[in-house]
């Protein structure tokens, strides 16, 4: 789901950069206020987990691939702002070192996966917290929410940015293609993400850590 350079219009990624930086500054303030020294090793390990998980892809029929994201355990255990900050760091390293996602599209990737994903994971978990499958559903639904957000951002490009001949200047496929394609292809990822979230959160809590 990391979008490469050249797919997103400057009219979209530049304001998104402003938003990402503003949210990160506010998130950092919250992070500093709530920081507990005991949580740093857990944060480092779960960020490493998110880094590795979002670096590897699950091959799907049709020659495409998708990847997990790993923000849900961070969000459930440490809150959405901390998860968002960690994911911003993860995506920055991936863009610079791995070429996963571009430098220009970093802002959109950070918003779609880091912000929307983390807040959705936290929201779903908070709503269903007493239910048996709250953790699984948090990972599952937030992954699909990120995919939906990204598909909308990509899919609006051919409507908004065209040349005089009506040809798309950036991403050329409309919402009618991107939404069903990204949502369907992310269902297996969301299932894996949900199971991993459930396993990781239970594991960390069994060790006596509540976040």
């Amino acid at each position, binding site marked *: 789901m990391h979008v*490469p350079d050249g*797919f997103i219009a400057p009219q979209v990624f530049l304001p998104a950069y402003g938003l990402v930086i503003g949210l990160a500054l506010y998130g950092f303030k919250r992070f500093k206020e709530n920081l507990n020294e005991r949580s740093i090793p857990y944060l480092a390990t779960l960020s490493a987990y998110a880094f590795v998980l979002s670096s*590897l892809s699950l091959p799907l029929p049709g*020659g495409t691939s998708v990847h997990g994201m790993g923000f849900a355990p961070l969000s459930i255990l440490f809150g959405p702002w901390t998860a968002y900050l960690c994911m911003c760091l993860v995506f920055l390293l991936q863009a610079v070192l791995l070429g996963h996602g*571009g430098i220009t599209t970093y802002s959109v990737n950070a918003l779609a996966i880091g912000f929307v994903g983390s807040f959705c994971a936290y929201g779903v978990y908070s709503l269903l917290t007493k239910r048996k499958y709250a953790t699984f559903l948090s990972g599952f639904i937030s992954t699909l929410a990120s995919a939906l957000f990204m598909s909308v951002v990509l899919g609006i490009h051919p409507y908004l940015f065209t040349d005089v001949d009506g040809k798309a200047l950036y991403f050329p496929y409309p919402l009618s293609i*991107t939404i069903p394609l990204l949502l369907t292809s992310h269902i297996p990822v969301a299932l894996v993400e949900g199971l*991993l979230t459930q396993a990781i959160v239970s594991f960390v809590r069994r060790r006596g850590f509540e976040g």
Partner: protein
Amino acid sequence: MIVILIFLLVSLSFSHELLEEVRQEGNCTLVHFYFQDGSAFSYEEYEVYREGEKAPFQKGRSDALGRVVFCPDRDGLWFLRIRSQDGHGAELRLNLKAGKVEKKRSKFESYQRVLSGLGYLLGIFGLISLFSRRWKR
């Protein structure tokens, strides 16, 4: 433990990272897009541009083997953009000089970069740990 287990899966899962190999065949440039397991990025839309031009020099779809071939008429910077409907793809800058260009990424490089990323990440959290005491004062 979980991170280690997931990391062990990298060898399987990097198989679908989109890579490219660029080489010169006579007067033409051949760019091969493929995943690490060798499966091709086939039938995807691409466009090739000369530097500074908005109209594409060439456009089409990659062939069944994920290859794009174009025959540049001059040296300099060329841009190749390829994308699939689900947002995958790449944008390459190719500096062509006297008909020579060579670019290939190895699997080892992918492992190396992930390991460096993990190193940076853990290092940053190490620094946060050092600064956290000051923030808490």
